[in-house]
């Protein structure tokens, strides 16, 4: 009996390694159906963005972005600045007015590019996908020195994202928010 178990165990493992990407893809799509289309995630954003996809990056008080250090700057997808919301919770930047994106990572990179270089992104590629450590020059490791640890947290329509940015499946009107979380 155990003679069969040894080759079988390897077979199962190899099959899983080969199938894992497509299984994960299907599961991410399935999980995305549970993300609520919260309209309140558009609160405080320009009304013209209500139907469009938005990316926000919020900075901690002690580590503000050099350009967006007062209120939250609203930038249109073509790079033009719409205004600054001083009542928004935190300081940073939101880029909006996008439509048609389904892959979180593509949207993230395009939206940060739209600001003309002030939101440069750096990430490591881990076995399970991209791991974002720097947005707009703020690396979570620099902040972690003051605390036990810090990381870039990703919210999807107002809730903590269940998947990494590399597996995130988007629909129209989605709002993604990156913010530093300290522990």
């Amino acid at each position, binding site marked *: *009996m*155990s003679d069969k*178990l*040894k080759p*079988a*165990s*390897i077979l*199962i*493992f190899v099959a*899983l390694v080969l199938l*894992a990407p497509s*299984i*994960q893809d299907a*599961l*991410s799509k*399935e*999980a*995305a159906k*549970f*993300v609520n289309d919260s309209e309140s995630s558009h609160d405080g954003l320009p009304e013209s963005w209500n139907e469009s996809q938005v990316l926000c990056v919020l900075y901690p008080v002690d580590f503000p972005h050099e350009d967006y250090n007062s209120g939250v700057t609203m930038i249109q997808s073509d790079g033009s600045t719409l205004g600054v919301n001083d009542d928004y919770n935190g300081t940073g930047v939101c880029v909006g007015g996008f439509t048609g994106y389904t892959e979180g990572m593509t949207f993230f990179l395009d939206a940060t590019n739209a600001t003309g270089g002030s939101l440069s992104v750096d990430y490591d590629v881990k*076995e*399970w996908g991209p791991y974002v450590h720097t947005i707009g020059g703020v690396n979570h490791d620099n902040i972690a020195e003051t605390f036990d*640890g810090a990381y870039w947290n990703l919210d999807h329509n107002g*809730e*903590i994202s*269940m*998947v990494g940015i590399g*597996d995130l499946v988007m629909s129209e009107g989605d709002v993604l928010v990156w913010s530093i979380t300290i*522990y």
Partner: protein
Amino acid sequence: MSDLHNIALSPNQTILLNAAILILIATALYRAERKLDGNEPWIMLCILAIFAIAGRILLDPLPNIQPVTVVVLLTGIYYGAPRAFAVAGIVALATNFLVLGHGPWTLFQVVGWGSIGVAGALLSDRLLIDGKLNLNRLAVFAAVSGFVFNWIVSLSILMKTDPSMLIPYVLSGLTFDMFHAAGNILFVAWMAEPLGEMMLRHQTSPNQKAVSEVVTN
């Protein structure tokens, strides 16, 4: 000051290096066990814990492949629930404090692995028949344990979010759970028999214990 020890390794190099370290540790433990006369259950428990701790830390670069679940399961089968729970606890604590990060999830991992040890102890007469492991049953049980353990640990998100997020969270993690299950089957297929024989040599059966107590009295 020179920084010659700080060599950046590629992921594949790290896995190879870690595998080499793990093989060295496992060989050392195997040889140490050979030198014992037998009937040393506590030394055997230490050997199991050291192997599980080293295995979990060194195999960390691989997604969810680690020997802890199978080691705790076997400990439950051979040594009973309390000792399996203790091994589960010390392995989770040691690995999390040393390398992988301690937090509220440590409690869930201790409970998760502990429960698998308890389940192994409860089902020991179905999995261990006349001193011989039923490997096929054990493989199925270990695969299921992989999923159950991960779901118990997933419950820790309830401290931060509401229950409605549990389903999408578990769904997104299913691939990760499958890797845990497949890894457990690998460990059962290749490791359970030799490890079981070792543990059997250091198993004080309840009957023997009763006899020795009578004699000393």
